[in-house]
């Protein structure tokens, strides 16, 4: 079997110290992205369980799989959830959702929860898009810019490189710093052309790590241009899968001259978490009307 280096690990988690049956509001969010899907379950406004997995070719299925996996071992079933909000690229295809809300709104809301009310600029680096979002102290979106047309600056671009260089996607960041000198960024914008450029560099005898560094640099530069067009206001935070890649994160922080906020939460669940927060608020509103 051939090794697929781009394949990142899927996982689920739940808090053993919480008894969900004792909670009065069970809200959930499901973020069906183009590359990965996440489900988040909250009990009375606190994070209880989540999962992160790859999106299959069928988004209703992916949504169901992600939610069932988040609920695995919790004793809860999807029917037990009071309110579910779907978000992400496949948000209209979440069969058990009560509502769909855009991922921009959900990311801002999720980041507000994860990083606190001081966060004003969020860079979400996802699988097939990259968004720069500005928000207020309540996590309400004030402006945003998005690239969803081009793979440069997205997780998919990084997967292509991990595969080309036979490096596990999780190791890219660390390895990219194992170089003697920081290289110039890869000059091609297009991932397809960058790939042939990288093949040329390898042929010239560049070590793998140096090529990785050059690509991380290029990706950092690419998203910094997006951020600068929107205007960066402190505090700043990065979410999405690429937020876990220090090779890109540190380089873009350096170019920006700004350090991103750190959080104990998983950066990939920001969208689903925001959706779950919306779900909680919507449920309470619904109950109040009754």
């Amino acid at each position: 079997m051939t090794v697929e280096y781009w394949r990142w690990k899927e996982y689920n988690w739940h808090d053993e110290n919480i008894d969900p049956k004792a909670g009065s509001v069970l809200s959930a969010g499901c973020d069906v992205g183009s590359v990965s899907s996440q489900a988040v379950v909250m009990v009375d406004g606190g994070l209880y369980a989540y999962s992160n997995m790859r999106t299959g070719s069928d988004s209703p299925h992916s949504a169901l799989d992600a939610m069932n996996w988040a609920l695995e071992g919790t004793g809860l079933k999807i029917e037990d959830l009071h309110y579910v909000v779907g978000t992400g690229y496949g948000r209209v295809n979440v069969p058990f959702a009560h509502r769909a809300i855009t991922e921009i709104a959900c990311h801002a809301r999720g980041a507000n929860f994860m990083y606190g009310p001081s966060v004003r600029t969020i860079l979400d680096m996802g699988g097939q898009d990259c968004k720069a979002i500005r928000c207020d102290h309540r996590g309400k979106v004030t402006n945003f810019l998005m690239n969803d047309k081009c793979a440069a600056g997205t997780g998919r671009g990084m997967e292509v490189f991990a595969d080309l260089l036979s490096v596990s996607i999780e190791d890219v960041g660390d390895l990219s710093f194992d170089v003697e000198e920081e290289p110039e960024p890869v000059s091609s914008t297009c991932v397809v052309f960058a790939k042939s450029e990288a093949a040329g560099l390898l042929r010239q005898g560049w070590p793998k790590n140096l090529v990785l560094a050059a690509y991380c640099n290029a990706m950092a530069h690419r998203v910094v241009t997006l951020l600068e067009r929107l205007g960066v206001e402190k505090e700043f935070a990065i979410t999405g899968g690429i937020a876990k890649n220090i090779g890109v994160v540190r380089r873009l922080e350096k170019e920006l001259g700004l350090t991103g906020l750190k959080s104990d939460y998983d950066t990939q669940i920001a969208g689903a978490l925001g959706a779950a927060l919306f779900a909680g608020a919507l449920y309470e509103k619904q109950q109040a009307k009754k």
Partner: protein
Amino acid sequence: MITAGMDLGSKFIKIVIMNDGDVIARAKMLSGFEQEVTASEALSEALSKAGLQSGDIERLTATGVGRSIAPFAHDRLTEVGAAARGAIARLPETRTVIDVGAEEGRAILITPDGHVKDFAINEKCAAGSGTFTEAMARALELDIVEFGRLSLQSDKAVPMNAQCAVFAESEVVSLLHARTPKQDISRAVHDAIASRIVSMARRVSVEREVMIIGGMAYNVGFIASMKRALEMELIVPDDPDYVPAEGAAWAAHDKLVGMEKTELKER
């Protein structure tokens, strides 16, 4: 008068040897990683086909993305200049040249007296280049020629949402999963490339006659999509990928006879 033109493209190196404007020999080789070596090999091959020695070439002009590395060239000419000169030599009525190669696309507007009036280039993005088609053919596990031909069998326009070649590959896989017939996917891909190129060409305006050159002009599916998108007939010359190399050889010729149509850069 023997002149030569060499086009050092991102994928192929093409060379043409001319005698008073008549092509007497040509050669084409994969550029590979050592373009300089390939360039010399291509030159030797063309010379031997023509039965000439390297000293017989009075002037050689290089063009293409790798033009700076051809050590034996007397002059260098931009891709735009070479494509325009070559197209005019093939058909003097040409006013618009659309040149689609492996990694670049160009649209060039020519004045009636053969000068470049305006042009647009895409060299940043693989969508709208030959590489895009190759990647899609690979995703469908089809030979590139077959892939182009298959497109003609489709009578259904399936939209492609992805613009990016990387994203389009996943989209093609999803279309396959959804059991979309391969000919419809092929047409969707060619329509997508054509639409990118036509929107670039419209920025400089499209005037008749329109000649389409470069390696992509061999692709019958792409040509059909271009005709649909432009809603006009196109001139597709024989050996369309040699046109810029011929243009370079013509430029060398023009220089020798003191009638320069294009601006040459001295080495």
